[in-house]
């Protein structure tokens, strides 16, 4: 290594070290370059708003618009949404959805990976991912969130849901029984009507308009929900008592099949 190269190498390393030091000195003496958002600092609030509008945070459920279609439950890759309720008949202590009554809608934040796959296919866009992101907890149980009450899933929730389960079964059984009666009544009515009509118009070419849906046998006014059950902090929908839910139409027994999943809807406006 010639003397020239030797001195040259010392020269370049000195020059480059000084250049690097000049750069860091420029940062040292210029406090305006500091970019720290002072999150969590007690004495001064964070400088910039740190959560954008489309932030995927902890979920928010608009219970009134929910039609209890289980699409979000099926869309979740880790099955962290569990919901329970019925569309048939109201029962005590139910949250009123759009044409359904929900007894439980819990989301296990421990499992949730905040991927927004549940909010996209929701036909009514009633589940959104909110702005809140702080879910640190001392125990796993605290991570399970009850979306109906926006509070962690507590012991009381579990007890209430167990009772609701019985009420739902009772309500569904009763609804099914009423539907069977309606079908039997309709069948009996049709049996009398057809022998009278048959001899009259065997030759009529145009098929008679299929008989319209027989009117429901006397709209049985279901027992309106008693006053909103105590302990339900989030009043369901409108303040005035919910209108009596029309009993399931005597048509197809099961609720209308959920519409084929529409093409991916426009961006969530949460």
């Amino acid at each position, binding site marked *: 290594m010639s003397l020239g190269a030797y001195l040259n190498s010392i020269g370049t390393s000195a020059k480059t070290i000084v250049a690097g030091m000049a750069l860091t000195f420029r940062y040292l003496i210029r406090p305006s370059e500091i970019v720290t958002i002072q999150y*969590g*600092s007690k004495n001064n609030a964070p400088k910039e708003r740190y959560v954008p509008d489309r932030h995927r945070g902890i979920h928010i459920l608009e219970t009134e618009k929910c039609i209890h279609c289980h699409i979000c439950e099926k869309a979740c890759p880790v099955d962290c949404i569990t919901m329970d309720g019925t569309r048939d008949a109201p029962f005590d202590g139910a949250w009123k959805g759009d044409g359904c009554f929900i007894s439980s809608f819990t989301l296990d934040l421990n*499992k949730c990976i905040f991927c927004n796959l549940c909010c996209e296919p929701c036909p009514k866009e009633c589940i959104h991912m909110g702005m809140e992101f702080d*879910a640190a*907890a*001392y125990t*796993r149980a*605290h991570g399970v969130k009850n979306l109906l009450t926006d509070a962690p899933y507590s012991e009381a929730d579990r007890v209430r849901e167990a009772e609701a389960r019985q009420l739902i079964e009772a309500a569904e059984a009763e609804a099914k029984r009423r539907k069977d009666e309606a079908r039997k009544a309709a069948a009996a009515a049709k049996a009398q009507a057809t022998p009278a009509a048959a001899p009259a118009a065997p030759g009529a070419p145009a098929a008679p308009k299929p008989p319209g849906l027989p009117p429901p046998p006397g709209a049985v006014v279901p027992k309106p929900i008693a006053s909103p059950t105590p302990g339900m902090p989030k009043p369901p929908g409108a303040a005035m008592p919910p209108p009596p839910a029309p009993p399931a139409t005597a048509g197809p027994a099961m609720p209308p099949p959920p519409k084929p999943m529409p093409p991916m809807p426009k961006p969530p406006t949460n």
Partner: protein
Amino acid sequence: MAESIQEINLNNDSPTRDNILITSVDQLVNWTRRSSVWPMTFGLACCAIEMMATGASHYDIDRFGSGPFRATPRQADLMIVAGTVSHKMAPRVKRLFDQMPEPKYVMAMGACTVCGGPYIKHGYHVLKGVDRLIPVDVYVPGCPPRPEALLEGLFRIQDKMKRERVLDRERIGLRPKLLVE
């Protein structure tokens, strides 16, 4: 949303837990522990990138005294398990936890460490939650949790440290339980 400190007593086993006497020595030592929680660089997967972001200039965990990320378990107080713990990695996690000097704390960062996260249904090689292996003090859900959520987790650990008692070796009521079904 934050769980109040009383809720820590969920798994308390000694009735005297509530009226424990926090002496002034405890308060001083707890203050020092609280204001210099040295995390251990234990980055496994994506959450490690968010942990680095928390240590970087934008969110700067050094403001709370947790700046020096110690590479060796011997000098660390807090083990942030950041990322998926696979079954092949589990014995290493256990050994690193044992190598840490007392009073040590564990923060399970991210859905993978809390309960297996996205790999909970079909992940045969993934440990479903690191609290099956080592007792976890604070769970921070998220995939990955934001740096702010990680800072909230740190504040939870600091709140927990407020209730320590220097002479109470077994940290009655505060030492978390292993999840054994």
